[in-house]
Protein backbone atom coordinates (compact mmCIF):
# COMPACT_ATOMS: atom_id res chain seq x y z
CA UNK A 1 0.00 0.00 0.00
CA UNK A 2 1.32 3.41 -0.97
CA UNK A 3 1.39 5.57 2.11
CA UNK A 4 0.32 9.20 2.01
CA UNK A 5 2.19 11.15 4.66
CA UNK A 6 0.41 14.34 5.73
CA UNK A 7 2.07 15.08 9.05
CA UNK A 8 5.04 17.22 8.08
CA UNK A 9 4.68 19.38 11.20
CA UNK A 10 5.43 16.29 13.27
CA UNK A 11 8.51 15.45 11.27
CA UNK A 12 9.72 15.20 7.69
CA UNK A 13 11.50 12.50 5.75
CA UNK A 14 15.25 12.82 5.33
CA UNK A 15 15.99 14.32 1.92
CA UNK A 16 18.14 11.86 -0.08
CA UNK A 17 20.56 14.73 -0.85
CA UNK A 18 20.86 15.38 2.88
CA UNK A 19 21.61 11.73 3.57
CA UNK A 20 24.21 11.79 0.82
CA UNK A 21 25.89 14.79 2.42
CA UNK A 22 25.83 13.10 5.83
CA UNK A 23 27.08 9.68 4.77
CA UNK A 24 30.84 10.41 4.79
CA UNK A 25 30.56 11.56 8.41
CA UNK A 26 28.68 8.41 9.40
CA UNK A 27 31.32 6.22 7.77
CA UNK A 28 34.95 7.09 7.02
CA UNK A 29 35.07 10.68 8.29
CA UNK A 30 34.46 9.90 11.92
CA UNK A 31 36.88 12.43 13.40
CA UNK A 32 36.10 14.54 16.46
CA UNK A 33 35.76 18.16 15.37
CA UNK A 34 37.88 19.21 18.33
CA UNK A 35 40.87 17.10 17.27
CA UNK A 36 43.73 18.91 15.57
CA UNK A 37 44.83 16.15 13.20
CA UNK A 38 43.57 15.64 9.66
CA UNK A 39 40.22 13.88 10.20
CA UNK A 40 39.40 16.19 13.10
CA UNK A 41 40.08 19.22 10.93
CA UNK A 42 37.85 17.73 8.19
CA UNK A 43 35.02 17.43 10.69
CA UNK A 44 35.63 20.97 11.94
CA UNK A 45 35.53 22.31 8.38
CA UNK A 46 32.23 20.50 7.72
CA UNK A 47 30.71 22.04 10.86
CA UNK A 48 31.88 25.52 9.82
CA UNK A 49 30.32 25.13 6.37
CA UNK A 50 27.06 23.83 7.79
CA UNK A 51 26.91 26.76 10.21
CA UNK A 52 27.19 29.19 7.29
CA UNK A 53 24.35 27.46 5.44
CA UNK A 54 22.00 27.47 8.41
CA UNK A 55 22.90 31.11 9.16
CA UNK A 56 22.08 32.10 5.56
CA UNK A 57 18.60 30.56 5.88
CA UNK A 58 17.66 33.02 8.64
CA UNK A 59 19.77 36.00 7.56
CA UNK A 60 22.20 35.62 10.47
CA UNK A 61 25.98 35.65 10.66
CA UNK A 62 27.46 32.23 11.19
CA UNK A 63 29.08 33.11 14.51
CA UNK A 64 25.61 33.86 15.88
CA UNK A 65 24.54 30.22 15.48
CA UNK A 66 25.01 27.47 18.03
CA UNK A 67 24.12 23.86 17.28
CA UNK A 68 22.01 21.94 19.79
CA UNK A 69 20.40 18.52 20.03
CA UNK A 70 17.15 19.93 18.64
CA UNK A 71 14.41 22.51 19.03
CA UNK A 72 13.60 21.50 22.60
CA UNK A 73 17.16 22.08 23.76
CA UNK A 74 17.27 25.41 21.93
CA UNK A 75 14.04 26.55 23.64
CA UNK A 76 15.27 25.36 27.04
CA UNK A 77 18.64 27.04 26.58
CA UNK A 78 17.15 30.33 25.39
CA UNK A 79 14.68 30.66 28.25
CA UNK A 80 16.68 29.23 31.14
CA UNK A 81 19.93 30.81 29.96
CA UNK A 82 18.38 34.24 29.50
CA UNK A 83 16.34 34.11 32.71
CA UNK A 84 19.41 33.23 34.76
CA UNK A 85 21.60 35.80 33.05
CA UNK A 86 19.05 38.57 33.61
CA UNK A 87 17.87 37.62 37.07
CA UNK A 88 19.27 40.75 38.69
CA UNK A 89 17.33 42.91 36.20
CA UNK A 90 13.91 41.40 36.83
CA UNK A 91 11.92 38.21 37.18
CA UNK A 92 9.07 38.57 34.71
CA UNK A 93 8.68 36.58 31.48
CA UNK A 94 5.94 37.05 28.89
CA UNK A 95 4.86 34.24 26.58
CA UNK A 96 1.61 32.92 25.10
CA UNK A 97 -0.82 30.14 25.92
CA UNK A 98 -0.35 28.44 22.54
CA UNK A 99 3.40 27.82 22.73
CA UNK A 100 4.86 24.37 22.22
CA UNK A 101 5.41 22.41 25.42
CA UNK A 102 9.15 22.95 25.03
CA UNK A 103 8.47 26.59 25.90
CA UNK A 104 5.41 26.18 28.16
CA UNK A 105 6.91 23.54 30.40
CA UNK A 106 10.22 25.41 30.57
CA UNK A 107 8.30 28.49 31.70
CA UNK A 108 6.50 26.42 34.32
CA UNK A 109 9.89 25.21 35.55
CA UNK A 110 11.10 28.82 35.73
CA UNK A 111 8.01 29.71 37.77
CA UNK A 112 9.12 27.06 40.27
CA UNK A 113 12.49 28.83 40.34
CA UNK A 114 10.85 32.10 41.37
CA UNK A 115 10.18 33.75 38.02
CA UNK A 116 6.78 35.14 37.16
CA UNK A 117 5.31 34.25 33.80
CA UNK A 118 2.42 35.92 31.95
CA UNK A 119 0.75 33.62 29.43
CA UNK A 120 -0.99 35.86 26.90
CA UNK A 121 -4.26 34.66 25.40
CA UNK A 122 -4.89 34.49 21.65
CA UNK A 123 -7.93 35.32 19.53
CA UNK A 124 -10.13 32.84 17.66
CA UNK A 125 -7.46 32.55 14.92
CA UNK A 126 -4.67 31.92 17.37
CA UNK A 127 -3.17 35.39 16.94
CA UNK A 128 -1.33 37.15 19.74
CA UNK A 129 -2.24 40.84 20.01
CA UNK A 130 0.92 42.99 19.98
CA UNK A 131 -0.92 45.57 22.10
CA UNK A 132 -1.46 42.88 24.74
CA UNK A 133 2.28 42.24 24.77
CA UNK A 134 2.89 45.93 25.35
CA UNK A 135 0.33 46.06 28.16
CA UNK A 136 1.82 43.03 29.88
CA UNK A 137 5.30 44.54 30.06
CA UNK A 138 6.35 45.72 33.53
CA UNK A 139 9.62 47.13 34.84
CA UNK A 140 10.42 43.56 35.88
CA UNK A 141 10.01 42.05 32.39
CA UNK A 142 13.21 40.48 31.10
CA UNK A 143 12.09 38.15 28.31
CA UNK A 144 9.30 38.01 25.73
CA UNK A 145 8.99 34.61 24.03
CA UNK A 146 6.55 34.10 21.15
CA UNK A 147 6.35 31.33 18.60
CA UNK A 148 6.80 32.26 14.93
CA UNK A 149 4.12 29.90 13.69
CA UNK A 150 1.91 27.53 15.60
CA UNK A 151 2.54 23.82 15.10
CA UNK A 152 -1.11 22.81 15.40
CA UNK A 153 -3.14 25.46 13.61
CA UNK A 154 -0.38 26.99 11.46
CA UNK A 155 -1.14 30.59 12.40
CA UNK A 156 1.81 32.89 11.74
CA UNK A 157 2.21 35.37 14.58
CA UNK A 158 2.89 39.12 14.11
CA UNK A 159 6.49 38.62 15.23
CA UNK A 160 7.81 41.80 13.59
CA UNK A 161 5.23 44.04 15.25
CA UNK A 162 5.86 42.39 18.60
CA UNK A 163 9.59 42.74 17.95
CA UNK A 164 9.30 46.52 17.56
CA UNK A 165 7.55 46.85 20.92
CA UNK A 166 9.92 44.52 22.71
CA UNK A 167 13.06 46.15 21.31
CA UNK A 168 11.83 49.63 22.17
CA UNK A 169 11.64 48.54 25.79
CA UNK A 170 15.06 46.93 25.64
CA UNK A 171 13.71 43.51 26.57
CA UNK A 172 15.23 40.24 25.32
CA UNK A 173 13.16 38.68 22.54
CA UNK A 174 13.04 34.94 21.91
CA UNK A 175 11.18 33.27 19.06
CA UNK A 176 10.47 29.56 18.80
CA UNK A 177 10.74 29.29 15.01
CA UNK A 178 10.83 25.50 14.81
CA UNK A 179 7.77 25.35 12.54
CA UNK A 180 8.62 28.40 10.46
CA UNK A 181 12.24 27.98 9.42
CA UNK A 182 12.44 26.28 6.04
CA UNK A 183 8.74 26.83 5.33
CA UNK A 184 8.50 30.62 5.13
CA UNK A 185 11.19 33.31 4.85
CA UNK A 186 12.67 34.10 8.27
CA UNK A 187 14.99 37.08 8.70
CA UNK A 188 16.35 37.65 12.19
CA UNK A 189 17.31 41.25 11.43
CA UNK A 190 13.94 42.22 9.99
CA UNK A 191 12.30 40.92 13.18
CA UNK A 192 14.94 42.25 15.54
CA UNK A 193 14.95 39.00 17.48
CA UNK A 194 17.70 38.19 20.02
CA UNK A 195 17.26 34.43 20.33
CA UNK A 196 15.66 32.09 17.82
CA UNK A 197 15.18 28.33 18.12
CA UNK A 198 15.08 25.91 15.21
CA UNK A 199 15.17 22.23 14.40
CA UNK A 200 16.56 20.25 11.44
CA UNK A 201 14.00 17.46 11.19
CA UNK A 202 11.17 19.82 10.32
CA UNK A 203 12.95 20.76 7.08
CA UNK A 204 14.00 17.35 5.72
CA UNK A 205 17.09 17.19 7.89
CA UNK A 206 17.94 14.57 10.51
CA UNK A 207 16.41 14.26 13.96
CA UNK A 208 18.59 15.08 16.95
CA UNK A 209 19.99 18.38 15.72
CA UNK A 210 18.83 21.95 16.01
CA UNK A 211 20.27 25.37 16.63
CA UNK A 212 19.88 28.46 18.73
CA UNK A 213 20.55 31.83 17.13
CA UNK A 214 22.05 34.26 19.65
CA UNK A 215 22.38 37.83 18.40
CA UNK A 216 25.88 39.20 18.62
CA UNK A 217 26.33 40.98 21.94
CA UNK A 218 23.53 39.11 23.69
CA UNK A 219 24.78 37.16 26.70
CA UNK A 220 22.90 34.21 28.12
CA UNK A 221 24.05 31.53 30.52
CA UNK A 222 25.04 28.10 29.28
CA UNK A 223 22.62 25.22 29.60
CA UNK A 224 25.19 22.44 29.19
CA UNK A 225 28.56 22.59 30.92
CA UNK A 226 31.59 20.62 29.84
CA UNK A 227 33.97 20.95 26.93
CA UNK A 228 34.75 24.06 24.94
CA UNK A 229 32.62 23.20 21.91
CA UNK A 230 30.48 25.83 20.18
CA UNK A 231 32.80 28.62 21.31
CA UNK A 232 32.50 27.64 24.98
CA UNK A 233 28.75 28.04 24.92
CA UNK A 234 27.37 24.58 24.29
CA UNK A 235 29.42 21.67 25.59
CA UNK A 236 29.38 18.22 24.03
CA UNK A 237 31.12 16.63 21.08
CA UNK A 238 29.56 17.95 17.88
CA UNK A 239 27.03 15.73 16.14
CA UNK A 240 28.99 16.22 12.93
CA UNK A 241 26.83 14.11 10.62
CA UNK A 242 23.66 15.68 12.02
CA UNK A 243 25.07 19.19 11.72
CA UNK A 244 26.18 18.55 8.13
CA UNK A 245 22.68 17.22 7.40
CA UNK A 246 21.13 20.34 8.93
CA UNK A 247 23.39 22.48 6.75
CA UNK A 248 22.43 20.63 3.60
CA UNK A 249 18.74 20.74 4.48
CA UNK A 250 19.00 24.49 5.11
CA UNK A 251 20.73 25.00 1.77
CA UNK A 252 18.06 23.01 -0.10
CA UNK A 253 15.15 24.79 1.55
CA UNK A 254 16.84 28.15 0.92
CA UNK A 255 17.03 27.33 -2.79
CA UNK A 256 13.35 26.36 -3.13
CA UNK A 257 11.62 28.24 -0.35
CA UNK A 258 9.22 30.46 -2.30
CA UNK A 259 8.29 27.95 -5.01
CA UNK A 260 7.63 25.21 -2.47
CA UNK A 261 5.62 27.53 -0.24
CA UNK A 262 3.45 28.64 -3.16
CA UNK A 263 2.89 25.08 -4.35
CA UNK A 264 1.99 23.87 -0.86
CA UNK A 265 -0.39 26.78 -0.33
CA UNK A 266 -2.21 25.81 -3.53
CA UNK A 267 -2.33 22.14 -2.49
CA UNK A 268 -3.57 23.06 0.98
CA UNK A 269 -6.30 25.23 -0.55
CA UNK A 270 -7.32 22.34 -2.80
CA UNK A 271 -7.59 20.05 0.24
CA UNK A 272 -9.59 22.57 2.27
CA UNK A 273 -11.90 23.36 -0.65
CA UNK A 274 -12.51 19.66 -1.25
CA UNK A 275 -13.34 19.08 2.40
CA UNK A 276 -15.82 21.97 2.36
CA UNK A 277 -17.47 20.63 -0.80
CA UNK A 278 -17.71 17.02 0.31
CA UNK A 279 -18.63 17.32 3.98
CA UNK A 280 -20.98 19.37 6.11
CA UNK A 281 -20.45 20.43 9.73
CA UNK A 282 -16.75 21.13 9.37
CA UNK A 283 -14.83 24.19 10.53
CA UNK A 284 -11.28 25.20 9.78
CA UNK A 285 -8.91 26.29 12.51
CA UNK A 286 -6.07 28.79 12.25
CA UNK A 287 -5.68 32.20 10.67
CA UNK A 288 -6.93 32.05 7.06
CA UNK A 289 -4.83 34.99 5.86
CA UNK A 290 -1.47 34.21 7.34
CA UNK A 291 -0.88 30.51 7.85
CA UNK A 292 1.94 28.06 7.19
CA UNK A 293 1.84 26.82 3.58
CA UNK A 294 -0.01 23.53 3.12
CA UNK A 295 -1.39 23.53 6.64
CA UNK A 296 -4.98 22.36 7.10
CA UNK A 297 -6.50 21.96 10.55
CA UNK A 298 -10.17 21.08 10.46
CA UNK A 299 -12.70 20.12 13.10
CA UNK A 300 -15.17 17.52 11.89
CA UNK A 301 -18.22 17.57 14.09
CA UNK A 302 -19.84 14.51 15.67
CA UNK A 303 -16.75 12.31 15.32
CA UNK A 304 -13.67 11.86 17.45
CA UNK A 305 -10.15 12.51 16.24
CA UNK A 306 -8.38 9.33 17.24
CA UNK A 307 -11.03 7.25 15.47
CA UNK A 308 -10.45 9.39 12.36
CA UNK A 309 -6.66 9.10 12.59
CA UNK A 310 -6.74 5.32 13.02
CA UNK A 311 -9.28 4.86 10.23
CA UNK A 312 -7.16 6.96 7.87
CA UNK A 313 -4.07 5.05 8.98
CA UNK A 314 -5.70 1.77 7.95
CA UNK A 315 -6.13 3.32 4.50
CA UNK A 316 -2.48 4.32 4.38
CA UNK A 317 -2.88 8.00 5.29
CA UNK A 318 -0.88 9.52 8.16
CA UNK A 319 -2.35 12.60 9.85
CA UNK A 320 -2.61 13.81 13.43
CA UNK A 321 -5.36 15.04 15.71
CA UNK A 322 -5.73 17.41 18.62
CA UNK A 323 -8.11 15.05 20.40
CA UNK A 324 -7.24 13.97 23.91
CA UNK A 325 -7.07 10.32 22.89
CA UNK A 326 -4.72 10.97 19.99
CA UNK A 327 -2.45 13.01 22.25
CA UNK A 328 -2.61 10.47 25.06
CA UNK A 329 -3.84 13.03 27.56
CA UNK A 330 -7.05 13.82 29.41
CA UNK A 331 -7.80 17.06 27.58
CA UNK A 332 -7.79 17.97 23.92
CA UNK A 333 -5.04 20.21 22.52
CA UNK A 334 -4.31 23.33 24.59
CA UNK A 335 -4.09 25.31 21.35
CA UNK A 336 -7.58 24.35 20.17
CA UNK A 337 -9.03 25.17 23.58
CA UNK A 338 -7.14 28.49 23.56
CA UNK A 339 -8.81 29.56 20.29
CA UNK A 340 -12.15 28.90 21.96
CA UNK A 341 -13.22 25.55 20.55
CA UNK A 342 -15.61 23.63 22.80
CA UNK A 343 -14.15 20.31 23.98
CA UNK A 344 -16.33 18.17 21.72
CA UNK A 345 -15.29 20.15 18.61
CA UNK A 346 -11.63 20.04 19.62
CA UNK A 347 -11.88 16.26 20.02
CA UNK A 348 -12.89 16.00 16.36
CA UNK A 349 -9.97 17.91 14.92
CA UNK A 350 -7.59 16.70 12.23
CA UNK A 351 -4.27 18.28 11.31
CA UNK A 352 -3.02 17.65 7.81
CA UNK A 353 0.32 19.20 6.96
CA UNK A 354 1.60 18.83 3.43
CA UNK A 355 5.24 18.60 2.45
CA UNK A 356 7.49 18.99 -0.55
CA UNK A 357 6.74 15.47 -1.82
CA UNK A 358 2.96 15.84 -1.48
CA UNK A 359 1.07 15.76 -4.77
CA UNK A 360 -2.34 16.67 -6.12
CA UNK A 361 -3.02 12.96 -6.42
CA UNK A 362 -2.34 12.56 -2.68
CA UNK A 363 -4.78 15.33 -1.88
CA UNK A 364 -7.43 13.88 -4.17
CA UNK A 365 -6.98 10.43 -2.62
CA UNK A 366 -7.55 11.91 0.84
CA UNK A 367 -10.62 13.71 -0.49
CA UNK A 368 -11.99 10.35 -1.66
CA UNK A 369 -11.21 8.39 1.49
CA UNK A 370 -11.86 10.92 4.27
CA UNK A 371 -15.55 11.63 3.51
CA UNK A 372 -16.28 7.87 3.49
CA UNK A 373 -14.65 7.44 6.89
CA UNK A 374 -16.49 10.43 8.29
CA UNK A 375 -19.77 9.10 6.96
CA UNK A 376 -19.15 5.71 8.57
CA UNK A 377 -18.19 7.20 11.94
CA UNK A 378 -21.07 9.64 11.90
CA UNK A 379 -23.49 6.79 11.21
CA UNK A 380 -22.24 5.33 14.50
CA UNK A 381 -22.35 8.61 16.39
CA UNK A 382 -25.22 9.28 18.81
CA UNK A 383 -24.58 13.01 18.29
CA UNK A 384 -25.27 13.00 14.56
CA UNK A 385 -28.86 13.11 13.39
Amino acid at each position, binding site marked *: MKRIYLDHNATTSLDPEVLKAMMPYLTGEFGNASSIYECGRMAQKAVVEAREKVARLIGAQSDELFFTSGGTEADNWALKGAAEALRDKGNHIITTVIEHHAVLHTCEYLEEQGFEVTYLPVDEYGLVDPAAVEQAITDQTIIVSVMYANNEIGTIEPVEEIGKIVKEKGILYHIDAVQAVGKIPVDVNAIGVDLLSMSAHKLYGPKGVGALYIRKGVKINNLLHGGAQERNQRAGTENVAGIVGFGKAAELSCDNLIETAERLTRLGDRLAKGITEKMDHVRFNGYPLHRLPGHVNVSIEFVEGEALVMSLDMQGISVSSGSA*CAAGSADPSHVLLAIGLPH*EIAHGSLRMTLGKDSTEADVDEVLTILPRIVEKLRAMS*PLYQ
Partner: protein
Amino acid sequence: MYEDKVMDYFNNPRNVGDIENADGTGRIGDAGCGDIIKIDIKVADRHIVDVKFKAFGCCAAIATSSMATEMAKGKTIKEGLAISNEAVAKALGGLPPQKMHCSNLAADALHEAIKDYQKKQAQ
Protein backbone atom coordinates in the same frame (compact mmCIF):
# COMPACT_ATOMS: atom_id res chain seq x y z
CA MET B 1 -1.04 0.57 20.50
CA TYR B 2 -4.23 -1.50 20.07
CA GLU B 3 -4.64 -5.26 19.86
CA ASP B 4 -5.78 -6.59 16.47
CA LYS B 5 -9.08 -7.65 18.01
CA VAL B 6 -9.78 -4.08 19.17
CA MET B 7 -9.08 -2.78 15.68
CA ASP B 8 -11.34 -5.47 14.20
CA TYR B 9 -14.25 -4.51 16.49
CA PHE B 10 -13.56 -0.82 15.78
CA ASN B 11 -13.32 -1.27 12.05
CA ASN B 12 -16.14 -3.81 11.69
CA PRO B 13 -18.43 -2.88 14.54
CA ARG B 14 -21.16 -5.34 15.44
CA ASN B 15 -24.70 -4.21 16.35
CA VAL B 16 -24.48 -0.56 15.34
CA GLY B 17 -27.70 1.44 15.31
CA ASP B 18 -30.85 2.24 17.23
CA ILE B 19 -33.72 -0.06 18.23
CA GLU B 20 -37.12 1.40 17.53
CA ASN B 21 -39.34 1.26 20.60
CA ALA B 22 -36.47 -0.05 22.67
CA ASP B 23 -37.40 -1.56 26.04
CA GLY B 24 -34.45 0.15 27.66
CA THR B 25 -31.88 2.79 26.74
CA GLY B 26 -28.62 3.56 28.49
CA ARG B 27 -26.42 6.56 27.81
CA ILE B 28 -23.09 7.28 29.39
CA GLY B 29 -20.27 9.81 29.05
CA ASP B 30 -20.31 13.34 27.67
CA ALA B 31 -19.03 15.02 24.57
CA GLY B 32 -16.64 17.14 26.61
CA CYS B 33 -14.59 14.14 27.65
CA GLY B 34 -14.71 12.74 24.14
CA ASP B 35 -16.81 9.61 24.67
CA ILE B 36 -20.55 9.05 24.56
CA ILE B 37 -22.03 5.57 24.40
CA LYS B 38 -25.71 4.82 23.90
CA ILE B 39 -27.09 1.28 24.12
CA ASP B 40 -30.66 0.18 23.29
CA ILE B 41 -32.04 -3.19 24.35
CA LYS B 42 -35.08 -5.26 23.45
CA VAL B 43 -36.17 -7.69 26.15
CA ALA B 44 -38.42 -10.75 25.83
CA ASP B 45 -39.00 -13.42 28.45
CA ARG B 46 -36.32 -11.82 30.68
CA HIS B 47 -33.74 -12.23 27.92
CA ILE B 48 -31.91 -9.50 25.98
CA VAL B 49 -33.11 -10.51 22.53
CA ASP B 50 -31.66 -7.52 20.70
CA VAL B 51 -29.08 -4.90 21.54
CA LYS B 52 -27.65 -2.03 19.50
CA PHE B 53 -25.19 0.75 20.21
CA LYS B 54 -24.06 4.12 18.98
CA ALA B 55 -20.81 5.68 20.10
CA PHE B 56 -18.97 8.97 19.72
CA GLY B 57 -15.43 8.33 20.77
CA CYS B 58 -12.06 6.81 20.09
CA CYS B 59 -11.32 3.34 18.77
CA ALA B 60 -11.52 1.84 22.27
CA ALA B 61 -14.94 3.38 22.93
CA ILE B 62 -16.32 1.98 19.69
CA ALA B 63 -14.68 -1.44 20.04
CA THR B 64 -15.81 -1.94 23.66
CA SER B 65 -19.38 -0.90 22.78
CA SER B 66 -19.35 -3.32 19.92
CA MET B 67 -18.01 -6.14 22.12
CA ALA B 68 -20.41 -5.40 24.99
CA THR B 69 -23.42 -5.67 22.71
CA GLU B 70 -22.16 -8.95 21.35
CA MET B 71 -21.61 -10.30 24.87
CA ALA B 72 -25.07 -9.20 26.01
CA LYS B 73 -27.10 -10.57 23.14
CA GLY B 74 -29.16 -13.62 24.19
CA LYS B 75 -28.22 -13.27 27.84
CA THR B 76 -30.70 -12.95 30.72
CA ILE B 77 -31.15 -9.60 32.41
CA LYS B 78 -29.22 -10.91 35.40
CA GLU B 79 -26.35 -12.11 33.22
CA GLY B 80 -26.31 -8.79 31.43
CA LEU B 81 -25.90 -6.93 34.71
CA ALA B 82 -22.98 -9.19 35.56
CA ILE B 83 -20.98 -8.13 32.46
CA SER B 84 -18.24 -5.80 33.69
CA ASN B 85 -16.12 -3.20 31.89
CA GLU B 86 -13.09 -5.33 32.72
CA ALA B 87 -14.69 -8.42 31.15
CA VAL B 88 -15.38 -6.45 27.96
CA ALA B 89 -11.78 -5.25 27.80
CA LYS B 90 -10.54 -8.77 28.46
CA ALA B 91 -12.71 -10.18 25.67
CA LEU B 92 -10.97 -7.73 23.31
CA GLY B 93 -7.56 -9.01 24.37
CA GLY B 94 -6.95 -6.00 26.61
CA LEU B 95 -6.79 -2.21 26.18
CA PRO B 96 -3.91 0.23 26.58
CA PRO B 97 -3.71 1.31 30.25
CA GLN B 98 -4.77 4.91 29.57
CA LYS B 99 -7.95 3.62 27.90
CA MET B 100 -9.07 1.38 30.76
CA HIS B 101 -10.77 4.17 32.69
CA CYS B 102 -11.83 6.74 30.09
CA SER B 103 -12.98 4.70 27.11
CA ASN B 104 -14.12 1.49 28.75
CA LEU B 105 -17.66 2.37 29.72
CA ALA B 106 -19.74 0.15 27.46
CA ALA B 107 -20.80 -2.27 30.22
CA ASP B 108 -21.93 0.74 32.28
CA ALA B 109 -24.07 1.86 29.35
CA LEU B 110 -25.51 -1.67 29.08
CA HIS B 111 -26.34 -1.68 32.81
CA GLU B 112 -28.03 1.72 32.42
CA ALA B 113 -30.12 0.28 29.60
CA ILE B 114 -31.14 -2.72 31.74
CA LYS B 115 -31.99 -0.47 34.70
CA ASP B 116 -34.06 1.74 32.39
CA TYR B 117 -35.95 -1.39 31.29
CA GLN B 118 -36.48 -2.47 34.92
CA LYS B 119 -37.70 0.99 35.88
CA LYS B 120 -40.24 0.97 33.05
CA GLN B 121 -41.39 -2.52 34.11
CA ALA B 122 -41.92 -1.34 37.67
CA GLN B 123 -44.17 1.52 36.56
